[in-house]
Structures are given as C-alpha cells and as structure tokens.
C-alpha cells in the first residue's frame, strides 16, 4: 500500500532557529506533493505544493520544500522560525490519476519564545 511517513513526531525549538521536517513517500509512480499546517484551534491550511518543474518550491509564511525524486522525499524548511509557527504540520501526497490525499502522521512543532 502507498504510504507517507514523517520522521519526527514532535519538534521543539527556539525562535530564530532553523526548521527542517522530513517527509518520505512510498514509490508508486508520479506524485503531487503538499504540505499543510494546522495552527492551534484552526483548520488545515495549504502551505505549499509541488507538481513538476523546479524541485525547490516556495510557499507562504517563508516556508519552502525540496523534492528529491531519488530519495522519495519532500522535506519542509524554514530558515528562521517564529513563535507563531507553533502548529502541526502534515505532509500529503496524491499519486497521479488519483485525487485523494494520503497524509503523514503529522509533526507537532513547538517554538519557544
């Protein structure tokens, strides 16, 4: 079965630190890749997406992600986090010709002021 895995369950860091969250997916052909964020008490919001072209994609709020096809990975990065980045982050994948998203288990990020 196709699956998505996120490496970290909970990450704690200080403001201004750099953030990198790992995401890997199982092989199954061409994929579309997404990162979503869920702030406390809010609904899921799309951070960024990758379909094709430049493997380095930039999203909202200063986030970026890099698609490495050979590693089946799509890691999320932010050079300098803020307290307001405290949230849960989900990696999601859909395989071409399939609309539904498969989600990773999520990573809770806590940023200490």
């Amino acid at each position, binding site marked *: 079965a196709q699956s998505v895995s996120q490496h970290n369950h909970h990450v704690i860091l200080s403001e201004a630190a750099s953030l990198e969250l790992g995401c890997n997916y199982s092989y199954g052909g061409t994929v*579309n890749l*997404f990162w*979503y964020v869920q702030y406390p008490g809010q*609904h899921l919001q799309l951070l960024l997406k990758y379909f094709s072209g430049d493997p380095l994609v930039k999203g909202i709020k200063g986030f970026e992600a890099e698609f490495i096809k050979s590693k089946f990975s799509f890691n999320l990065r932010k050079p300098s986090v803020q307290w307001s980045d405290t949230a849960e982050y989900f990696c*999601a994948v*859909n395989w071409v010709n399939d609309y*539904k*998203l498969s*989600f990773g*288990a999520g990573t809770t990020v806590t940023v200490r002021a």
Partner: protein
Amino acid sequence: GAGVSQSPSNKVTEKGKDVELRCDPISGHTALYWYRQSLGQGLEFLIYFQGNSAPDKSGLPSDRFSAERTGGSVSTLTIQRTQQEDSAVYLCASSLGQRSGQYFGPGTRLTVT
C-alpha cells in the same frame, strides 16, 4: 472569498443514532472530499466526488457510512447506527482539480457517547 463551510461544528450523539454532516464547498470547485481526523488513525480519506463521475468510496470504513453530493455542490455525509469508534473530526475539502491543492473546512467534531 468564502472558504469551505461545514455544519454542525460539534455534534454529540448517542450510540446507535444516525447523524448527518453537511459540507458547502468553495463555489466553482468541481471536486469534493471527505476525510476524518482522529488521534489513533491520523487523517484518513473517506470519499470523494469529481464532477459527474461516480464517487470514489474506497475509504469508507463500513456500509454504515454514505455520502451524496447534490447538484454538484453541497454534500452530506451520513453515518448510520453510530458507534463509539466513529468519534472523530470529519473534514470536508474541495478543489478545482487534482493539481490545485485541496482546501479544507473547519470540520465537524463528532462525539458518540
């Protein structure tokens, strides 16, 4: 513009009762999805509708679950004879297509007592 809306925001029901959850997608979005989010299972796909095509029901956990989409817009997810394991947040999302990213509503928190 208006996002995806869902009602009710919270629903408490007794085991064995039927419940209906409603979703209003973003206007013009042809695809509509239902997911559920629970502590033990993470984010799980349930069903999606794309235009006039037959829905993909592959994620529905049992025949107690059903959904319909009327007029290509509003959707209702029905759970019959609810069980305690049905307790979760039920999320609706919509999209323009496979590559446009899915936009989520705030969810309906269902508690079965």
